[in-house]
């Protein structure tokens, strides 16, 4: 077990592509850190550099306070779990799990002991003599985990280990991996593009965008205090509603924002969190409204009222109800938003909406009688929970 530290790490591929830019981050001994980001953000590259499967162009990588830049994967003493599991097809489960120990010339009875222990932990006892071909996806995943566990390595590296499983199994394995890591206390770096995995599994989440570390913090802190538009748009599902609004002087507060015909006073709590907004009166900002901070009821004193929103779509999800509301708030069109959406079609749709001069907000309500499609409704928004960003730089107005 050991800590892992990136110091100004850069990665250029031979074709000149700059995959990782000045990555500096330290991961404590026993910590579970998630690397998350849109496709092509360099998260897998960063992981492979820790594994020793990719060379480091510049900077230093330390495992257990030792610079490992020039060490082979073998010398680094780490274990990795792959998306495809990468089990050896010609070996039995037991042989797969014991292979690395065999290569390191561990005595046979010690190998057997450790393999049996790991099989016990993972519920693989009955399957030790099977070949991977005869296993289900979930079982293969477990064998891949077992292969990592038996080595008792300095760190676990996991590259989207759950993305080949079906949804139900993924939920189960997610909990199992998190519990296992907690029990073993091995430093773990986990790459995923899945929101839920990122939010639920790790101690900290590092969000990468185009090879640059955008923000690293605990999942809840990322969710509540995104540093920039990219993190705000990327973390959360359904995504935060982001739009450009005019800032004016409010009636009960020095600052208010305009959405449609409604003026929403921004309470002191929000201004303390985002003091930069006060300088923007008479100008505009990018505002972020989480879907769950809308209220169906209006006028309870906490919420500010937004009137005349046309209901475009209602999604009843059992435990909640998502209502798509047409607004005149133009979307933020920037590189950060494109990266946060991670979907060129979705971004084109956003650009189209921007030209039309509005966009659709998603509000999440308790399930109840759904509003009528096409009708205009008023909803409340808890403006103390609003987020504010500079629309050009995308930085939070802290």
């Amino acid at each position, binding site marked *: 077990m050991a800590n892992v530290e990136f110091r100004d790490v850069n990665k250029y591929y031979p074709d000149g592509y700059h995959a990782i830019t000045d990555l500096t981050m330290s991961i404590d001994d026993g910590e579970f850190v998630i690397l998350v980001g849109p496709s092509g953000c360099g998260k897998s590259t960063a992981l492979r550099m820790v594994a020793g*499967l990719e060379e480091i162009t510049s900077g230093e990588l330390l495992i257990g306070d030792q610079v490992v830049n020039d060490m082979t994967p*073998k010398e680094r003493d*780490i274990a990795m779990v*792959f998306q495809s599991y990468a089990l*050896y097809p*010609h070996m039995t489960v037991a042989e797969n799990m014991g292979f690395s120990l065999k290569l390191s010339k561990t005595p046979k009875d010690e190998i057997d002991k450790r393999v049996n222990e790991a099989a016990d932990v993972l519920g693989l006892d009955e399957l030790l003599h099977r070949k991977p071909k005869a296993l289900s996806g979930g079982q293969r995943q477990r064998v891949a985990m077992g292969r990592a566990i038996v080595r008792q390595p300095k760190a676990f590296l996991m590259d989207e280990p759950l993305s080949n499983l079906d949804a139900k199994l993924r939920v189960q394995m997610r909990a199992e991996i998190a519990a296992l890591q907690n029990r073993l206390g091995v430093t773990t770096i986990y790459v995923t593009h899945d929101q839920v995995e990122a939010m639920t599994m790790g101690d900290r989440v590092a969000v990468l965008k185009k090879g640059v570390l955008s923000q690293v913090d605990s999942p809840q802190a990322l969710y509540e205090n995104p540093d920039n538009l990219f993190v705000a748009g990327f973390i959360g599902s359904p995504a935060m509603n982001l739009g450009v609004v005019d800032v004016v002087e409010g009636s009960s507060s020095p600052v208010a924002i305009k959405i449609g015909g409604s003026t929403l006073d921004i309470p002191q709590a929000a201004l303390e969190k985002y003091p930069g907004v006060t300088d923007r009166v008479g100008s505009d900002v990018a505002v972020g409204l989480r879907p769950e901070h809308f209220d169906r009821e209006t006028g309870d004193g906490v919420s500010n009222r937004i009137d005349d929103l046309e209901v475009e779509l209602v999604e009843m999800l059992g435990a909640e109800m998502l209502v798509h509301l047409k607004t005149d708030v133009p979307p933020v069109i920037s590189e950060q938003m494109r990266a946060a959406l991670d979907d060129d079609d979705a971004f084109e749709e956003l650009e189209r909406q921007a030209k039309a001069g509005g966009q659709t907000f998603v509000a999440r309500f308790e399930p109840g009688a759904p509003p009528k499609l096409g009708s205009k409704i008023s909803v409340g928004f808890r403006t103390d929970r609003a987020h504010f960003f500079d629309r050009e730089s995308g930085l939070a107005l802290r």
Partner: protein
Amino acid sequence: MPESSTTLDQPTTAEPDGWLTPARRRRLLKFLLYAVAIFVGLVIVVPLSFAILGGFRSNQQLVAAPVGLPDPWIVDNYLRLLQTSSFWQQVFNSTLIAVITTAVVLPLSSLAAFAIARFRFRGREPIYGLFTLGLLFPVAVAILPLFVVLRQVGLLSNPLGVALPQAAFGLPVAIIVMRPFFRAIPNELHDAAMIDGCGPWRFYFSVVLPLSRPVLSTIAILSIVGSWNAFLLPLLVLIEPSQHTLPIGVNNISTQFATDYATVLAYTTLSMLPALLFYAVAERQIISGLTSGAVKE
């Protein structure tokens, strides 16, 4: 399958007037397919059975009716040959050369194909191209310079003088068959092996070779059968009669006993038998070796 698809397709795609309905078309294609397959089968089976059955007939029977079944069956031709020491000597010589050839081809070609398939290095493609060019040179073309070289290095009248050149000429095909197979081994498997502590050699021996059994046996069979049937090179290199291989023996006996058709046919049959048996046993492996790697698992 034809029944179900007929009922499915006929109402929608059949042209009302055309005689070539989809169902008929399928039947016609099937007929052609069988016709070709049967023709090709006959081309192989007829001479083979002529030789095998001819060995069971007497010369009188053969002269009286060249094509026909043995009546009565005579096993004497076979038994007589099986008792001669020269036949067994030739079986031994053929086996020895086939084994040496294969023992040289397999490790060399698999290592070369492994390097070409899985490492990036300067000049990789030209080297591969060079091997492909090797396909264009049959032994017969190079026989004269080859003979000169073998004489200079003193390999005439030596089984190695046959086995080594055969191995050299067998390398291109082996490498070309193996390369895509090795390429198809997933990169993540390579990464996993590296992390488990493999270097390139360990990966080759512990992962690549065990996974490549089908392609390795394909190459082994091709080179054994190729060596078994080789005629020109052994004829030129192996001067002592005690070193002769089976094809040379067949040739000798057919010139020696030009009129003893039955013996010649029996000898030919016996010389083919080991290769045929070997092929029959390994046929499944060959098929899977030639087709695997083409489709991702």
